[in-house]
């Protein structure tokens, strides 16, 4: 069966610049804000010399800790765990290098920036506690957060004695893997344009969850949620960094209220590294105990990280391999003078899969076993806890098809065995597992007199292709061509079901969440339309008792009319309905799977590890748009590979300063680092999850990609690099 594939409906607007992102909005009388950030990591602002800045042309206002716009509250709920709870400019205390200490507002962006550079801040500095390295040994168990499973130890069985189980195993290995901090570095910075009218806030602010953003802003600003309108149709990348509300949007909103003028705040590239969240550094130790035949007997997984937000143990280890004895735990290093950590693409899954899939490779080597064979011997058929069966799992097929496509049989069993001139060639593989949930949500579908139909939900499209998937699903549900569907998203006034889906596009669940609700809403809307045709004054079908809808046309009483004609004749602006998707069937567990295969070439003289081939085989249920799905997977894989190849936030322990907080020194892969990715989708719709059969894929590519690379480097060179990224200096013989 040919898989549906469609160009992005927003592509033309994006490449021509017609798509307006948050910072593109210009409002009459708008004031421009520029942030000033601290140059110490711990201490106190003693004084601020604002005279020169105030005297500079065009300056409207300067907010500081002593003179700040009013905040009535703070972030609550999940945001209190995953974002910065201290309001901006709260007081004179400095808690990290790069903390906001002033907001300059001026008539032009240049004037604001210019004046900001004239502000002289005097600090009383204290030696910061900014070294994660040093803090690791004092890590503590995290406090439990009600309703949040993160950081809670997992034991199977409950009374497991993991040390004894490891000791009783025929083969044991213990390895530690270190991952540095990482920054979202999305193309579009955090930016907001805020305007108040009659006590209501309208804010253009890039977000993954418009409704959650409205809720969080309303809490911070002390207004009703209904009085905050978030507009965010285009988001230039989020990756978890725009899942919650950060200071730039709060300041724009609060300043606009104080000044009675629209305010725009655009975060500078360097500032994004500190005033918005990042992925914290982590250190993971795995101990595996196995039988000689490869069957796992014990898995111990201990993580240390800066905060609770990304728990690799919870997210990864219970979902990959069967073992009778499992112990998973996490410790955190609270109180570091570092910027706030949040979630980042595949939170916990990325770091956890790197460590787990590397240690499995190490165990395979120890046992002299093919890495795929080792994984098949420990294949997981049901959940570790509760033994729920998986709804639709074809990971074994991913391994088989991937090995075939990639040519896994040509892999040299002995590391360093394959060379090509000055290049050492290696192959590695890794598994990706990603929970595939969905939340119930509400969609509104409505017919309009011009022959189009709207499909609306308060989700977002951070480059994922949601605009297009909504159009395609609406088209399928209504029997119309996709170009007659008008999707609406990225707006907090659009429908959503409530607390379960308020966060919009997170957790790779947006497509799985929204598309079933489109089907339900379309059914309801068609019923409403048929009723309208049979009863409305002016309808040619009025009085008919056999009205039917098909492909945009209504028939009944021997007559036919298109819905556009019908609504024009009845003088009706629209006929539509809301529909809410059914609850999830909880008798099964749901996950998406992939197998990655990676080839690298490492220079025998100078050690550069170059990616040369990559194959991913994906089992993610029905693929609703092959084109955007492929884009999601390749983007995800490269995102994961970046952690292996070059990405690394470098924190100076002595000063708390991030020494590479810019895109020249914080290395993201460039086109020259990539290859033509081979992506293959299996076709097993997961109809137990939802009627559309689609599971999430947004983060799936990211999971495991770094491990496939590291394992390939080991196969090429015999060197096992357990600290990311894998740079040439780590491979010099």
């Amino acid at each position, binding site marked *: 069966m040919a898989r549906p594939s469609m160009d992005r409906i927003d592509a033309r607007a994006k490449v021509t610049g017609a798509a307006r992102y948050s910072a593109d909005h210009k409002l009459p009388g708008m004031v421009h804000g520029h942030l000033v950030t601290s*140059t110490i990591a711990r201490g106190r602002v003693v004084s601020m010399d604002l005279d020169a800045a105030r005297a500079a042309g065009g300056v409207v206002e300067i907010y500081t800790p002593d003179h700040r716009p009013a905040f009535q509250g703070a972030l609550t709920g999940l945001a209190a765990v995953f974002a910065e709870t201290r309001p901006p400019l709260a007081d004179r205390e400095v808690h990290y290098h790069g903390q906001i200490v002033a907001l300059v507002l001026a008539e032009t962006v240049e004037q604001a*920036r*210019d004046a900001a*550079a004239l502000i002289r801040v005097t600090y009383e500095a204290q030696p910061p506690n900014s070294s994660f390295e040093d803090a690791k040994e004092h890590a503590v168990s995290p406090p439990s957060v009600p309703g949040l499973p993160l950081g809670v130890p997992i034991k199977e069985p409950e009374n497991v004695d993991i040390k004894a189980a490891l000791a009783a195993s025929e083969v044991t290995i213990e390895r530690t893997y270190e991952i540095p901090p990482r920054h979202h570095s999305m193309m579009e910075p955090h930016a907001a344009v805020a305007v108040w009218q009659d006590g209501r806030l309208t804010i253009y602010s890039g977000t993954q969850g418009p409704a959650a953003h409205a809720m969080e802003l309303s809490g911070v600003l002390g207004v009703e949620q209904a009085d905050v309108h978030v507009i965010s149709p285009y988001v230039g990348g989020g990756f978890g960094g725009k899942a919650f509300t950060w200071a730039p949007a709060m300041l724009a909103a609060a300043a606009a209220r104080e000044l009675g003028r629209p305010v725009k705040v655009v975060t500078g590239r360097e500032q994004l590294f500190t005033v918005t969240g990042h992925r914290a550094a982590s250190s993971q130790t795995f101990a595996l105990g196995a039988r000689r035949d490869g069957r796992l007997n014990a898995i111990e997984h201990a993580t240390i990280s800066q905060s609770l937000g990304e728990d690799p143990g919870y997210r990864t280890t219970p979902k990959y391999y069967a073992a009778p004895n499992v112990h998973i735990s996490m410790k955190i290093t609270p109180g570091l003078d570092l910027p706030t950590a949040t979630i980042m693409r595949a939170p916990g899954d990325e770091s956890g899969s790197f460590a787990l899939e590397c240690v499995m490779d190490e165990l395979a080597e120890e046992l002299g076993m093919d890495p795929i064979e080792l994984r098949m011997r420990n294949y997981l058929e049901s959940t570790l806890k509760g033994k729920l069966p998986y709804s639709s799992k074809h990971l074994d097929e991913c391994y088989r098809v991937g090995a075939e496509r990639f040519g896994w049989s040509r892999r040299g069993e002995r590391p360093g065995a394959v060379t090509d*001139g*000055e290049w050492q060639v290696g192959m590695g593989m890794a598994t990706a597992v990603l929970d595939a949930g969905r939340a119930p949500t509400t969609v509104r579908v409505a017919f309009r007199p011009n022959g189009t139909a709207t499909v609306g939900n308060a989700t977002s499209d951070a480059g994922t292709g949601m605009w297009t998937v909504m159009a395609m699903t609406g088209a399928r549900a209504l029997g119309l061509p996709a170009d007659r569907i008008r999707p609406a998203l990225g707006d907090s006034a659009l429908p959503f079901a409530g607390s379960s889906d308020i966060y919009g596009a997170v957790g790779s669940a947006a497509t799985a969440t929204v598309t079933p609700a489109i089907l339900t809403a379309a059914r309801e809307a068609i019923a409403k339309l048929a009723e309208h045709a049979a009863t409305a004054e002016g309808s040619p079908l009025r009085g008919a008792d056999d009205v039917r809808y098909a492909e945009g046309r209504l028939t009944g009483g021997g007559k036919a009319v298109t819905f556009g004609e019908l609504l024009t004749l009845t003088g009706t602006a629209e006929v539509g309905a809301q529909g809410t998707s059914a609850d999830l069937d909880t008798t099964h567990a749901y996950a998406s799977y992939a197998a990655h295969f990676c080839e690298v070439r490492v*220079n025998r*003289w*100078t*050690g*550069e590890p*170059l990616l040369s081939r990559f194959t991913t085989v994906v089992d993610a249920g029905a693929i609703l748009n092959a084109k955007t799905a492929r884009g999601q997977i390749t983007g995800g894989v490269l995102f994961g590979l970046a952690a292996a*190849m*070059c990405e690394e936030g*470098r924190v*100076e322990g*002595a*000063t708390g*300063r991030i*020494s*590479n907080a810019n895109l*020249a*020194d914080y*290395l993201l*892969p*460039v*086109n*020259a*680092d990539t290859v033509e990715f081979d992506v293959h989708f299996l076709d097993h719709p997961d109809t137990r999850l939802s009627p559309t059969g689609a599971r999430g894929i947004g983060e799936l590519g990211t999971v495991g990609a770094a491990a496939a690379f590291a394992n390939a480097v080991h196969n090429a060179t015999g060197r096992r690099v357990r600290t990311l*990224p894998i*740079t*040439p*200096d780590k491979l*010099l013989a």
Partner: protein
Amino acid sequence: MRPYTYAAARSVGEALERAGDGSAYLAGGTTLVDLMKLEVVSPAHVVDITAVPLRGIRRGPRGLFIGAMERMADVAGHHLVAEPYPVVAEALRQSASPQIRNMATIGGNLLQRTRCGYFRDPATPCNRREPGSGCPAVDGHNRSHAILGTSDACVATHPSDLAVALTALDARLSLRGAGGERTLRLADFYRLPGGTPHLENELRPGELITGVTVPALPWARRSTYVKVRDRRSYEFALCSAAVAVHVKGGVIREARVAAGGVGTRPWRLPAVEEALRGRPMRTETFEAAVAHAADGARPLARNAFKPALLRRTIVRALVHLAG
């Protein structure tokens, strides 16, 4: 960026006339504008020399002349460069990004400032930016920093790839200032930091680079540039090697070797050249010849790998030329 005045010059004479205390010449702008935005440099006056006709790539009696205002991309693709001096073309093509190579000029390339993160962040001390303020790189994040030619005052790496290739080829600079014209070996142009890292080169106030002359060296057709870096494009060298060899009957008669990414200026390695001379063109020779390449190096806490990387980068370049 601080406010400044701007003037465009159409001739060298006009440019020299308009330059003065605290002024800066603007050519491709790929370094200057960056540094002005960061407020690392804040010239009071900018003299735009984009229209000054310092162009031309031509063969002359002294070798190949390249006008200072030629763009990196144009020079890299020019047949008078690419065929007789592959090392120059390769160094240019591995520099920066296509967009930058289309804008940046040869004169500007040779005058680009170090990528040291402390130099580029005015919130930190830096002896190069503010004499006497200190050098956090000595004990800080110094993975990309130099191991050769360093001082306690400065360990910043010279960033130019082109300058490494030109140093190997013993190129000369043509300079013009109020006092008239002069030429200078590129090798004598860059200063070691010593106690005065803010004095980076021999350029006099207001003086302009008008061109570069690469001496005729027929055997430089056998030359190459190897650049080792953390990603495959748009990144500076962890280490690089510019190498040319003159081989007859399987024996190395002459060699030129210079390194980048390791020195406070482009680093010529005469001892390696000497150790190659008269030896057979094969890997054993190369490995023996580089044994002392990093003698005198002062590795820092985070770049202890550089001496080994330097040796291996040179060997890799030589292996390329042998292949």
